[in-house]
């Protein structure tokens, strides 16, 4: 089973994503802050983390860098509400691609699960 970590401070977004992915057969955990995210990753590192760019204590970019540092195997999907979001060079350097950037709201959510499966497959190949 593919382990997915949802990091989003918006409970409605987070909750619905967790529910949708669970229904689709993923092993999902949702957290609303960076601290929780670090803890979750340390406890059970997910295969893929879906990260909101704007978090209350820390921006998604820094968060991803920290997590990547501790757990280089984790893959990331950027899930942002900003239309003008552009992939920073720092993330591109650790393997995040434009295809891994999804804009809210993603309709239908199947696009998200496809992306997660694609990344997980890539990750398992690497491992």
């Amino acid at each position, binding site marked *: 089973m593919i382990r997915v970590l949802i990091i989003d401070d918006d409970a*409605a977004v987070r909750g619905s994503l967790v529910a*949708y992915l669970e229904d689709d057969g993923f092993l999902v955990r949702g957290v609303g802050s960076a601290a929780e995210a670090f803890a979750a990753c340390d406890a059970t590192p997910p295969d893929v983390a879906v990260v909101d760019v704007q978090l209350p204590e820390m921006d998604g970019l820094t968060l991803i860098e920290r997590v990547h540092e501790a757990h280089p195997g984790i893959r990331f999907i950027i899930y942002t509400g*900003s239309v*003008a979001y552009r992939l920073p060079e720092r993330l591109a350097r650790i393997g995040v691609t*434009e295809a891994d950037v999804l*804009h*809210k709201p993603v309709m239908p*959510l199947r696009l998200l699960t496809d992306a997660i499966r694609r990344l997980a497959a890539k990750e398992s190949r690497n491992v």
Partner: protein
Amino acid sequence: MGRRRAERSIATFVIVTLVAVVTALLVGLGAVNYISERDQNYANLTAGTATKADQLAAGLALPLWNFDRDQVDKVIESAMRDPTVYGVIVRQPDVTAPGGTAVYVRVRGENWEDVAANEPFLTAGQLVQERTVSASGADVGSVTLATTPRFVREELRLNLWSTMARIVALDLLLVLSLWVLLRRTVILPLQLVERYAAAVSRGERIPAAGANGTRFNGELKSLQGSIEKMVGELDARCDDLRQGQATLAGILNSVPHSIFWKDREGRYLGCNAVFARATGVEDPRAIVGKTDFDLPWPREDTEKYRAADRDVVETGCIRRHMVEPLRLASGTTIWVDTTKVPLVGPDGRVYGVLGVYEDVTERKEAEEALRREKALTEAVFNSVPGVLYLFDDQGRILRWNANVPEVTGFSDEEILGTVAGGRQSPEDKARIGTALRTAMTEGHVELEASVVTKSGAGIPFYFRAVRMVADGKTYVVAIGVDITERKRAEAVLLESEKMRTVAGLAAGMAHEINNPLAGMLQNAQVVQNRLSTDLPANRRAAEEVGTTVETVAGYMERRGIPEMLRAIRSSGERAAEIVANMLSFSRPTTDALVRHHRLSEVLDRAIELAQSDYDLRRFDMLHLQVVREYADDLPEVMCRATEIQQVVLNLVKNAAQAIAGAAERGPGAPRIVVRTARVGNKARIEVEDNGPGMPEAVRQRVFEPFYTTKGPQSGTGLGLFVSYCIVARNHGGTISVESVEGKGTKFTIELPLETAGVRT
């Protein structure tokens, strides 16, 4: 000394010649005399000897006959008394000895004494006479008498010496008398004349020759006269010359002009004092032999001067009034007006060049200052920003700057004499007239008025006019500044201020809306999922509460819940789409690269797209003319082609819709003009239609998001907003709109030609 020797040689020559001639004559005469005397003496001697021999023979006849020896001796002795007799030989047949001869010989001894000898003496060199002595008809013996010419020779020699002595004495006398004579009559007067001539040639004035009493005679007298006359005339002429020269020098040195003359090779032959001063040569005479290279001119000037000299010398033509700079020895440079004239010799050949120049620095400077002043005034006049008019008190245009014809398109001839506001509408003309009167009375006025161009268009200008009094007349000077750009810039600024706020708001709002939208839509989707009969978890959960998914689904269907969920999704998705459209300009596109693009190509594609647009086909695009007016001088523009294409497509579509939807059309056939131009460092795109135009209230809001005058079916009202954001935000450009109701609308886009404004 040379002269004295020459004079002496003349005297010597005369004397020697005379003496030689006289001596030769006398010697000749002496020689003739000598020869005749010698012949005579010898003849006398010979005759005397013969006579003596005869007398001796006669005297001896008797003694010999008698053999009287003593008597014979006596006879001989007496004969010997004659000193001319050298010797006597007397022969007598010896009677005692047959065939023998008795001889009596008397001869001269060493001291010419009478000596008896036994033998006959030699008779060589003497005159010899032999006689037979006869007595009584019988030969009794012979006598030989020898006389000597010795005394004759001696006498002749004596005569010769005396003749020579006479000749010498005569010569001496001749020399002396001639020298005295020549000296008195020729040499002394000649010396005097010579001294006089020498003194005259030295320039001294001494009394004329002969004044000290020396006598001149004959030719010398007339020579002296001639010389004195000549000297007199020369004096007079010299005086004239000196007078003339002094006058000339006076003129040369008192005129303010510099004067110089040179030979064909450019060597100075002379100059006046002014020129000498200019060159730094202390004396005009010192210039002679110098060339311009020796003078203080700069090298290139020197070459120019010499070229002009050569030209004059070679062509023989006068070069007048060459105004050129000249650097003086003092280092200052002056302006001179030079005229160069060929100097023609008596043979008609040009032997040099005469130059005259005048210092025209002051004149030149004054002219220059005047010219500069005029040019400055003109330049100031013409560089006054905007148009400048000078009106008389009747409002007639007297003068204007170069901007007036440039702005209006009217020529100077067309402007001259026109009245202020003469081409304006009557109201404007009245307004302008009032303003001019105000300027006349109050002294100044400000006015916004349009300037009418030859094509009839009005350009808005802001005028400031002031009263001016010159030469007792009153004028009004008005300066007008074109405020078209200012007005446009003001409008653009206002628009951009507004739009920046709106765009910022929209962007912020979009982010804030997308999150709740995601929450809403995702939850709706999860709900739909969980109502599905296929999901095992659903089935399990239904069983746990004692029912079946089918029952739940049936209930839901009955209550129309799935339809409601679809409606939530649909509305949510539409909201998401609106937000996405609103911010579409900021979405990263596949055409993220900003490149140099030829605007004409970008616009062509946009027009093409518009013409194939389905929505527009509904309008009568066949009757809509799209005119392209592209500038030739427009460089390629840094931009994102698809974005600019989208903007222009938008504008063309809007224009087509406006024309098609209008109840009344503007003037002329319906048409859209797509125009490009280069304006400074910007590229300008204009999309102009002759549609119905729009009211000012609409014009002011066209770029606002969601603002639309079209029906709800036609669009969201985001097209111009997005266009605005693409131009202003993504390309650092401006977009503005002008519209006249009933005439049409014109959108103007300006993109910077530099890349700095483009946002990636």
